[in-house]
């Protein structure tokens, strides 16, 4: 029989002002297996953690339940605390009575208390069935793979090789640099992009650790963190390389606004990148109208691309600086010039005479061809009047969108994309630039439209994260992996089909065919568990008996008691 200790947290007033923590504590004492229960002002404080450790020792507790906030932030802390007290950290169960109870039932203290009791009973029921786990370990091939040789990929690869990590950089084009090759200067700092790229390129090319694969693609990938095998294909050959970590820097592309605002039919209506090429050739138009948010922030593509405003402002200034008399207008729906520098540049543009006008999605600007050039009719929302503008060029500021074959790349890497087709990182705040798939990292515009400076920062971040397993030489496998009960398994293969990671195979052990989970490849999603018909497949920490016991506890405490 387990010896369970239950610790109810006041969280200052956060919980205790709503939930009657004393009552919950007294109730916890009556639950099966509970030999100790108490409540603390702040369980996560050093004092609170210390008192939990003392109680573990005094009462010889072997299962710890803390009812406090969310496991998503505080579970690691309490687990470490258990470990310090000599209890396997996976014998810890977290009950969320703050986010899921006191905070959302602030006006119903009695009901909230009852619910907290139910939740504690459920946690205790699960805890009683928890088993100690050991974290697995697997070796890491000390080689990195960077997919994409744009600014993000270059930043990442450069950082990796500068740490002495052998790195394969794969670029589908014949030269490195990505979109930046077509852009002369980068706003708002007005950095010369060529210089930036050359510096990064040189740092990579000079390194004996770097392998640059131009005109190549990654066409195959097997394995798992520490032990991937990637196939790099070029026209000449397919090469297999073993790598320990992967950085995805496949970038995005400019959205081509076919048919919008006369693009494709009216000469002079161009995209931002086309303008960049013109400016690089020192062709500065006399009359320029920028239209912002073309193809973004509208139904179907409702995101903000974040870099278009700064780009238009940057180019407007470049035109103004080259030709102070040139007429430049920016038609926008909101200016996104976030941060101190960009906002200053925005002000500077206005001071230089760039006209900013606000249009609405309901009444978008109209472009007509004139004898020479174009005429733009725009309803200015602020002035509440229709304004006519002449233009040599109308520049459509379109968003960054995912590359065309993003889904193929996603399938290859077994990583998710969001509804727009951008890659989805594991968690925006808790695990940035990581994928849920361990050992695979994401940076740059493949993840989300970003400024160049952000791309570089992300590239460096991804490189830093990728270097962790490579430097450590081994990875810890979190014990939430699945395993098959060989007694029960009949090798029907449901789990094999259900696994998104090809982590399960049917093998013959002791002349019995059965499913076997490759722990290092398993990401702990539990999909196989639900697909298994005879309860043979189990997930550590989420066993069917454990979850079943939680349901039973709810039934017992909520239904039977109320009878």
């Amino acid at each position, binding site marked *: 029989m387990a010896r369970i200790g239950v610790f109810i947290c006041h969280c200052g007033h956060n919980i205790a002002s709503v939930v009657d923590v004393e009552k919950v504590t007294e109730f916890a004492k009556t639950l099966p297996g509970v030999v100790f229960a108490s409540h603390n002002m702040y369980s996560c404080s050093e004092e609170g953690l210390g008192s939990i450790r003392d109680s573990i020792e005094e009462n010889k507790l072997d299962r710890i339940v803390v009812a406090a906030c969310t496991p998503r932030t505080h579970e690691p802390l309490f687990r470490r605390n258990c470990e310090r007290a000599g209890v396997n950290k996976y014998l810890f169960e977290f009950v969320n009575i703050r986010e899921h109870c006191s905070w959302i039932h602030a006006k119903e203290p009695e009901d909230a208390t009852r619910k907290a009791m139910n939740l504690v009973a459920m946690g205790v029921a699960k805890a009683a069935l928890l088993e100690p786990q050991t974290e697995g370990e697997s070796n890491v091939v000390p080689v990195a793979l960077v997919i994409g040789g744009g600014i993000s990929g270059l930043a990442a690869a450069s950082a990796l090789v500068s740490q002495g990590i052998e790195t394969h950089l794969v670029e589908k084009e014949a030269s490195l640099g990505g979109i930046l090759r077509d852009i002369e200067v980068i706003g708002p700092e007005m950095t010369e992009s060529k210089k930036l790229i050359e510096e990064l390129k040189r740092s990579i090319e000079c390194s004996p650790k770097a392998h640059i694969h131009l005109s190549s693609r990654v066409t195959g990938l097997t394995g798992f963190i520490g032990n991937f095998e990637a196939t790099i294909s070029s026209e000449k050959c397919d090469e297999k390389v073993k790598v320990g970590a992967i950085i995805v820097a496949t970038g995005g592309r400019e959205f081509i606004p076919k048919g919008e605002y006369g693009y494709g039919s009216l000469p002079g209506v161009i995209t931002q990148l086309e303008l960049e090429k013109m400016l690089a050739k020192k062709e500065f138009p006399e009359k320029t109208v920028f239209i912002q948010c073309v193809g973004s922030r509208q139904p179907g593509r409702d995101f903000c691309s974040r870099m278009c405003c700064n780009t238009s402002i940057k180019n407007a200034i470049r035109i103004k600086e080259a030709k102070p008399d040139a007429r430049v207008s920016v038609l926008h729906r909101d200016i996104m010039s976030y941060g101190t520098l960009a906002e200053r540049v925005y002000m500077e543009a206005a001071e230089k005479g760039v006209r900013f006008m606000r249009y609405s999605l309901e009444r978008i600007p109209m472009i007509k061809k004139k004898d020479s050039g174009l005429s733009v009719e725009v309803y200015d929302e602020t002035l509440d009047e229709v304004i006519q503008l002449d233009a040599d060029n109308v520049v459509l500021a379109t968003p960054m969108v995912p590359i065309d074959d993003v889904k193929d790349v996603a399938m290859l890497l077994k990583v998710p994309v969001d*509804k727009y087709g951008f890659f989805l990182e594991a968690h925006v705040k808790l695990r940035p630039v990581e994928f849920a798939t361990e050992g695979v990292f994401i940076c740059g515009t493949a993840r989300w439209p970003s400024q160049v400076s952000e791309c570089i920062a992300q590239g460096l971040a991804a490189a830093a994260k990728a270097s962790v397993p490579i430097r450590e030489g081994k990875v810890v496998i979190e014990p939430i992996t699945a395993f098959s009960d060989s007694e029960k398994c009949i090798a029907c293969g449901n789990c094999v089909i259900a696994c998104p990671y090809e982590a399960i195979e049917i093998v013959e052990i002791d002349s019995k065919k059965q499913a076997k989970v490759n722990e290092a490849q398993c990401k702990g999603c539990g999909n196989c568990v639900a697909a298994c018909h005879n309860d043979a497949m189990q997930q550590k920490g989420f066993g069917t008996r454990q979850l079943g016991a939680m349901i039973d506890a709810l039934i017992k405490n909520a239904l039977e008691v109320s009878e």
Partner: protein
Amino acid sequence: MSEFNPTILAFCCNWCSYAGADLAGVSRLQMPPNVHVIRVMCSAAVKPEYVFKALSQGIDGVLVLGCHIGDCHYMTGNHRTAKRFPLAQKILNDVGIDETRLKLDWVSAAEGEKFQQVITEFVGVIKKLGPNPLREVKF
């Protein structure tokens, strides 16, 4: 007997809906106190067996909440969820359990308000339906 206070079970996936529930909490969004969350890593790890068990033992309603389609952190997990639970609902209906006692929905990590809305609406639906009749059935 006072007003019917349903007992509801919710399965939330770790990445989206549980985080959405946390966000609802952080945002202090108020909602009825009937729903008890069990955290799972992915909505596709929720065995329909749990739902059948819970409902046949008298739980008044079960929610299964996952990431939006396309946002699953395990790529295709919630596609299976979306395939399974409509069938589970129909089977409930076949044996005469009101199928709206089981609800599948998607809540992202950023959708605290949606979480609040889903919970509030579902509790409303269950309150209207009344207690699970299987509470009274003695096999």
